[in-house]
C-alpha cells in the first residue's frame, strides 16, 4: 500500500491553507467592528454640498440628524417634488422639528442633553427658506449648536 503513496523526493510540498480561515476571520472582525448600520432609510435625495473648512463630527451619540431634500421617486407622487424634511423615518413639516428635537433630547442620558449637536444633512439643491424655518424652530427649543454636514471637497464645486 505504502508503495503507491510514497512521495518522490524533491517534490515541492503543497502550501498549507490551514491558516486561511484565521486570516479571513481577522478581516471579517475588522469589517464587523467598523460597520455602521444605517438606522433610518433615506426617503429624500441627499447629495450634500462640499466644503473644506470642516470639522469632524465626533461622538455619534451626541448628534441628532435632520434630513432635507427632494423626495425620492417613489414618494414623489405623494409628497411632490419640493424639498421636504425627513425626521427619523417620516416626512415632517417645519413646525414638527421642535417637538422632534425635544423628543430626541429626552431620549439621551441626562449628562449629554446640554451638549447635543444638530446635524443638518441638506441636499445641495434645497432652498434656504426651508432651512431658515428649521433654524427658527431650533432656536425656539434652544438647540443652538448646529452642524451643516457636508462632504469634504472644494467649496467652489457647489456653484457649478
Amino acid at each position, binding site marked *: 500500500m505504502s508503495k503507491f503513496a510514497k512521495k518522490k523526493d524533491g517534490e515541492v510540498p503543497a502550501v498549507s491553507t490551514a491558516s486561511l480561515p484565521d486570516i479571513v476571520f481577522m478581516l471579517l472582525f475588522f469589517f464587523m467592528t467598523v460597520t455602521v448600520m444605517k438606522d433610518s432609510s433615506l426617503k429624500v435625495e441627499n447629495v450634500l454640498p462640499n466644503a473644506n473648512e470642516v470639522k469632524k463630527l465626533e461622538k455619534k451619540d451626541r448628534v441628532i440628524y435632520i434630513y432635507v431634500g427632494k423626495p425620492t421617486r417613489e414618494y414623489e407622487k405623494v409628497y411632490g417634488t419640493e424639498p421636504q424634511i425627513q425626521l427619523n423615518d417620516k416626512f415632517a413639516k417645519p413646525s414638527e422639528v421642535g417637538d422632534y428635537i425635544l423628543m430626541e433630547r429626552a431620549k439621551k442620558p441626562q449628562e449629554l442633553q446640554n451638549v447635543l449637536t444638530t446635524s443638518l444633512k441638506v441636499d445641495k439643491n434645497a432652498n434656504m427658506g426651508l432651512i431658515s424655518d428649521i433654524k427658527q424652530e431650533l432656536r425656539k427649543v434652544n438647540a443652538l449648536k448646529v452642524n451643516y454636514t457636508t*462632504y469634504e471637497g472644494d467649496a467652489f464645486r457647489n456653484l457649478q
Partner: protein
Amino acid sequence: MARRAGAPEVNAGSMADIAFLLLIFFLVTTTIETDAGLDRMLPPIEPPDQDVVIKQKNIFQVNINKNGQLLADDELIEIADLREKAMAFLDNGGAPQGSPDYCSYCKGTRDASSSDSPAKAIISLKNDRETKYSTYITVQNELVGAYNDLRDREAQRLYGQKFVDMEAEYLNPETSDEVKDELKEKVQRIQELFPQKLSEAETSTN
C-alpha cells in the same frame, strides 16, 4: 483495521468559505461614514436685555440673493473674492494706537472707516428664501475660512503650528488629558484674538 476511539473529526475545510461569505457581506454593507461639516452656533431667541449699539463700520454686510449673487458692503463681488475681503475687514484694526480697542497683532491697512478691532468686527450674513443651499454653504465656508486663516496666522506666530491642527487635536477623543489641557488654553487664546462673530439675520422674504 481497528477503529479509533472517539468521535470522528469534523471537516473544517469549508470554514473558510463561510467566513468569506460573511466577510463579503460586511464588505458590501460597510459605509465608513465621514460625517464632517461646518459647526455654527445659532443666536438665542430671546433678545438681549439692552440694545447694543454697533457702529456701522464694524459690520460687514454680506447679502446673497436668490440668483446666488453676492453683495458685500454694498459692492457686487464674486464669491471667490469674499475670503480676501472678509479677512481684510477682520484684520483691519482701525482703532488708533492708545485707544482700548487698539489691535497690536493686526496686519491690515488700519483704515479708520473699517472695523476697529477683530473683537469688534461683526460679519452679518443675510440670504433670500430662494437662495440655493449650496451657495449658502460656499459662502459660509469662505467666511469660516477667513477666520481660520487669520487664526492660523496668529497660532503660527505664537505657537509655531496651525490653529486648525491644534483644534483638531484638541477635539480628537484619542488625545490624552494633559495634552488637551495645554491645548485648551492655547486654542482659547487664539479664539479670543479673532472671535467668530458671524450674525445670521432672519431671511428676507422678497
